[in-house]
């Protein structure tokens, strides 16, 4: 079952030989001896959707494993599924509205708002009863996120190719609407209904104001791309 999850169209992503018994044992040994503290701080799994800022027809289901560093800041390791075979596809940072307002406008352009994906039931914490997670959702609804994707598995890349790309969040306007098929597929997998969650979340307060620099494409019609240029490296000794 797990092996099937790792395959797309018959090709393995990533390719490579299965782990040897020797490697398994080395891993187990290391695991017993090392404390892996930062990773143990992840205490939430969030499933939601994201869109490529440079091509919003490309939409993905994402799985965030979240660590809270303080009341205003979270950092997330993002995967393309919730299974143990999931590929690490990026990093998202989440900040409170207070912190977001302190950022320079040029920086704010790279961030997206979260209110819609929460109110619409697109963002869920798999397995957690809605009432338990409600306070967290109320908090998250007022936050902004910055999400870099480093591996475009949705287009079949077998290995992580190219520079990171900037992702955007679902929004209730044309380009930002998530394809219903994607939603149905996710809902079926977790036996939930985004529609039902949307109704349950009517009471979650909307932010009074969403900064117009966020979700930059809505008012400006542009997304962002990262180019990589060859340049003279500042060096102290030769490289390589």
């Amino acid at each position, binding site marked *: 079952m797990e092996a099937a999850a790792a395959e797309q169209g018959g090709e393995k992503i990533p390719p490579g030989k299965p782990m040897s018994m020797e490697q398994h044992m080395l891993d187990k040994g290391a695991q017993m001896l090392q404390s892996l503290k930062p990773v143990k701080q992840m205490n939430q799994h969030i499933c939601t959707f994201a869109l490529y800022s440079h091509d*919003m027809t490309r939409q993905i289901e994402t799985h965030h494993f979240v660590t809270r*560093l303080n009341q205003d800041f979270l950092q997330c390791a993002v995967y393309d599924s919730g299974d143990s075979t999931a590929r*690490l596809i990026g990093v998202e*940072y989440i900040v*409170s509205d207070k912190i977001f307002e*302190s950022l320079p406008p040029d920086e704010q352009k790279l961030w997206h708002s979260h209110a819609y994906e929460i109110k619409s039931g697109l963002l869920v914490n798999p397995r*957690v009863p809605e009432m338990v997670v409600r306070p967290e959702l109320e908090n998250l609804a007022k936050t902004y996120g910055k999400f870099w994707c480093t591996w475009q598995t949705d287009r079949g890349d077998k*290995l992580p190719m190219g520079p990171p790309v900037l992702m955007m969040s679902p929004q209730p306007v044309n380009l930002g609407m998530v394809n219903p098929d994607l939603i149905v597929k996710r809902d079926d997998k977790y036996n939930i209904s985004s529609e039902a969650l949307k109704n349950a979340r009517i009471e979650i307060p909307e932010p009074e104001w969403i900064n117009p620099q966020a979700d930059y494409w809505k008012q400006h019609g542009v997304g962002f791309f990262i180019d990589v240029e060859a340049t*003279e490296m500042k060096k102290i000794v030769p490289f390589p």
Partner: protein
Amino acid sequence: MEAVNVLTHPQIPGEPTQTSTTLLEKATATIQGFGPVNKIHQHLCAFHFYGHDMTRQVEAHHFCGHQNEEFRQCLIYDRPDDDGRLIGIEYLVSEELFLTLPDEEKRFWHSHEFEVKSGVLFMPGVPGPIQRQDLEKVAKTYGKVFHFWQVDRGDSLPLGIPQVMMAMTRDGQLYENLSQDVEKRYNISFAKERENRAYMTGPAHGIHPMANGGGQGLQTVLREVECKPVGVDHSAARVFV
């Protein structure tokens, strides 16, 4: 020249976590599955520098899991502590996988041979003989690293765009104060470990000339692009709301 010690850097802005939030997250941590994260089995400490600027160097704590024998994916933190900041991602591939990449892509990837053989890449807490069984494999791999948080320049938040990072390929690149700091903290000697690792070899085909930036610096630049028009108006297709 000295590199900045990130351990002395300012805190992330924001209020301390409220008790109610902590309790809620303890609940989610208990109830939910953490499959992908549970695969992370290994802590590797190494150093990266910016792909366009060798003078900016960062201690990088990698927390790695295997997708298979030839591919690892790592989360990079600035410190191996509970409050370590997630600053980047690294992917490691075998030489075989690396050679399947187009030349344009190979530029992003750096070789690990020198880092491993010099001793500066190591597994904290793991005895030498056990480490070496894994690191002799790592010596033949290539890595692709991006950092998203420039902690070395004092950023208290992850500002700006992703940075391509590179790693050490010869003596004299790594700042002594950085390496000595790590040696002291972990009570190890890179020089001693270098002797122990003298038997190791790098990639069978030698270090590929297109790796390590293809011999050039690499710098990322942000570009605005017109939003690709959507073919289907999903708002019309939606049944709800």
